[in-house]
């Protein structure tokens, strides 16, 4: 052990030396981890340590090596170099089952639970309590109830899992992980689909686990959340360790700098060019009158969007902000109301109608509704344009390649080639491909639903800049984001939704966090 600590001291890339005098000492240690994939050096001499009862943020942009490090730790990928120590003993983790045996549990961003089983069945899947070779249902449900109560999760053991929101499902996944004698818990972007309230409940759960001496590795893109709950931060960049820091010693700006590896342009430099000319007399690019997709989705709303404008849609998850834009685009069928494009009445029955009227829609759930996972980057880029052109006017191979090259360059998409399947790209680059897909159709009105979710800081800024550039070029953008600062930076008007109703439109001096949140919360209006 002594020797190891010295090794660590000697390595000069360490930020601050932590845990030296801590009596518990680091209980999980990874030293000199290296891992290569064909053509990529994913991890190079990375050290990592986790103490009992701490929450440790693992930060880095997409492609920094966070996921690879986790996958090496949990035995998904074998590592090429390096050693792993648990409580001072060297261990070799060969498979996820191995990891579980050592007390390392992971909850991935994509939940791997069975939606059609009950909560209790999910909690005990694979280790159901038995009574004479048969599952002891009563005991299973009772134990599940105990566990849920202990962790303060509001779920019924006998209810089907998919009757609960993603947030609750996430917590159930954590409960399942914790239940297996877990000493080290890895949470891979658990908050990316939760709203603020749900995040707080998750944090309560994490704090309770921390008290029980569980070491938690927390991977997230939300910097605020890191500072709210974490004790230490490890930053990776391009597969290399940047450093390990106590949270008090690393201001936010420094953290972002370390992640990006360069001085980023101060984000506040991105300011909205507010056009004074958006006068009332101008014909809106898009107008919705009493448009509704049935009360269960969104109540009738009126909306006008002008040329060159970025309109934000804010509200809690489930407030109907996504449903509203889906109705405009025709992804959800409108049951009443009228739509006008440049003053002319149009009926949009299908998404293709909307596209033909110059609309584009980047959906919220990239994986389920955006990417065509097995198709190449090229095919993913041209598919919308090809659909718009119709089945017989096929783009030639040459044209396709030209467009693909053009947009890969324009948006700086990092891919091995244009024939690489999109599923092997990182999340941020997949999102850029979807953006390219829509930009190629040359839309006049773009709907971007959470385009920056689960994406690294650098790409986020790029996308924000792109939105402003589009507006400058005279295109209109509807922008949805869960991050208020991001919307405040880009939008000139923010529509607020609550309980599937449009409850307000904020402009100019009202565009600040407090007013927006107050409008979202309701009460005094």
């Amino acid at each position, binding site marked *: 052990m002594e020797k190891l600590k010295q090794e660590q001291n000697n390595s000069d890339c360490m930020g601050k030396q932590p845990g030296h005098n801590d009596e518990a000492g680091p209980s999980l240690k990874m030293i000199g981890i290296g891992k290569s994939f064909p053509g990529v050096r994913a991890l190079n001499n990375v050290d990592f340590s986790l103490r009992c009862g701490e929450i440790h943020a693992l930060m880095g942009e997409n492609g920094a090596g966070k996921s690879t490090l986790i996958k090496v730790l949990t035995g998904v990928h074998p590592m090429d170099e390096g050693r792993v120590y648990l409580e001072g003993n060297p261990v070799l983790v060969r498979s996820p089952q191995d990891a579980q045996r050592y007390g390392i549990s992971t909850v991935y961003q994509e939940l791997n639970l069975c939606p059609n089983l009950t909560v209790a069945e999910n909690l005990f899947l694979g280790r159901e309590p038995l009574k004479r070779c048969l599952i002891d249902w009563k005991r299973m449900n009772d134990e599940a109830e105990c566990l849920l109560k202990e962790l303060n999760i509001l779920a019924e053991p006998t209810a089907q899992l998919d009757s609960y929101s993603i947030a609750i499902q996430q917590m159930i996944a954590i409960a399942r992980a914790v239940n297996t004698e877990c000493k080290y818990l890895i949470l891979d972007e658990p908050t990316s689909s939760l709203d603020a309230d749900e995040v707080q409940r998750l944090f309560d759960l994490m704090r309770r686990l921390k008290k029980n001496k569980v070491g938690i590795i927390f991977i997230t893109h939300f910097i605020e959340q890191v500072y709210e709950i974490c004790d230490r931060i490890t930053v990776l960049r391009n597969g290399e360790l940047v450093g390990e820091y106590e949270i008090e010693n690393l201001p936010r700006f420094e953290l972002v700098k370390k992640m990006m590896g360069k001085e980023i342009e101060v984000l506040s430099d991105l300011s909205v060019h507010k056009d004074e000319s958006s006068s009332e007399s101008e014909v809106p690019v898009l107008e919705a009158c009493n448009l509704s997709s049935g009360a269960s989705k969104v109540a009738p709303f009126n909306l006008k969007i002008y040329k060159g404008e970025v309109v934000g849609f804010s509200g809690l998850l489930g407030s109907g902000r996504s449903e509203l834009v889906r109705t405009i685009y025709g*992804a959800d069928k409108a049951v009443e109301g009228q739509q006008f494009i440049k003053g002319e009445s149009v009926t949009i029955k299908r*998404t293709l109608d909307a596209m033909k009227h110059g609309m584009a829609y980047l959906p919220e759930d990239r994986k389920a*509704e*955006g990417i065509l996972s*097995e198709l190449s980057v090229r095919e993913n880029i041209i*598919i919308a344009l090809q659909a*718009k052109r119709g*089945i017989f006017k096929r783009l030639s191979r040459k044209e396709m390649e030209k467009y693909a090259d053009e947009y890969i360059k324009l948006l700086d998409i990092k891919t091995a080639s244009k024939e690489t399947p999109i599923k092997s790209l990182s999340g941020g680059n997949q999102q850029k491909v979807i953006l390219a897909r829509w930009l190629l159709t040359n839309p006049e009105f773009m709907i971007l639903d959470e385009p920056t979710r689960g994406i690294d800081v650098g790409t986020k800024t790029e996308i924000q800049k792109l939105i402003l550039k589009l507006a400058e070029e005279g295109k209109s953008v509807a922008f949805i984001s869960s991050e208020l600062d991001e919307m405040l930076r880009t939008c000139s008007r923010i529509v607020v939704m609550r309980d599937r109703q449009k409850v307000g439109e904020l402009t100019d001096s009202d565009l600040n966090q407090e007013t927006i949140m107050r409008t979202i919360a309701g009460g005094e209006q």
Partner: protein
Amino acid sequence: MSDLKGNNKLSKSTFISFAKSLASNRLTFSVVVLLIVVVQNIITTPGFFKITIANGLISGYIPNILDEASELVIVTLGMTLVTAASGGQDISAGAIMAVAASFCGLMLNGSEYRTDVFHSPYLLALLVGLLGGALCGAFNGFLVSKLRMPPMLTSLILFTAGRSIAKQITHGQTIYIMNPVYKWLGVQIPGVPIRTTIIVSTVTVIFITLLTRLTSLGLYIQSVGINDASSRLVGLKSSVIKFLTFVLYGVLAGLAGLVGSSSVGSVNSGELGLGIEMDAILAVALGGNNLGGGKFSIAGSIIGAYTIQAITTTLYAMNVRADQLNVFKALIIIVIIVASSDVFKTKIKHFTQKIFSKNVSVGG
């Protein structure tokens, strides 16, 4: 090869990377199986490549296999498209074949069950047969694309009822069409030295390949098969595309039915194309296509279909009795399924990695 055996590290690593890319190619597997069958034939059958002309027809082992495989090839084309778009399989091909042939037979024979006089124009009768197939396909397609029923369950309806319907059309009898013109499609057009079945199946393969390549149909089908929701949002009418593949499937099965009944000169709705759908599914799987839909390879499926026919023909040539044939086929299916399973693939991958790392450590 001597280079590979030697300790030349470079050629070894290029060989390994070549082997890896070969292993990841979806076509490799079916080609390998076909090669094994061919090599086996070369060893056991002396006259395998011999081609003779008998009765004004090119004949021999290979033309024979091409001829006998033609119905399967045509049905396999349809199965490939349906599988890619819907992620499921249509098992009513044999029944549709019977229905289409019965329609055609009814047109040609009228109410007589054995005659050499055409009651209506030959081409019109063929068209009506194809139309019958298209109707069956449209029925399946409607249930799958509009009512979102699983393809296999949907096609179970026609699988069960199709042959009865065909029997009703032909008044419960096998009908014999004695006019020699009827055999043009399934045997030979006078003066042409190649079996018409080979010509028809080849033309159909070319037609479907061009249809999916020259239009965007191929891209649309893959897109819908991979992700229905994404496809809808980029403006594709996924239900229309699925429906279309089922109609195509119906037409192709109908064509196979006409070819099949023409080659025997009669319409026996109980026997025509019996069990062909299962061979077609096997051909699609053997061709490296994902039975869950998405990306597809027509070339792979076709090679798969010919492989299955070659296996059947070979087994017959080896004096395997018809009642034993299915046991051998089952054995082959087991091998194929095991070899294409994910578990087996990862095992192989680990194994090759082990060898690879050993090589490196020895070399370094």
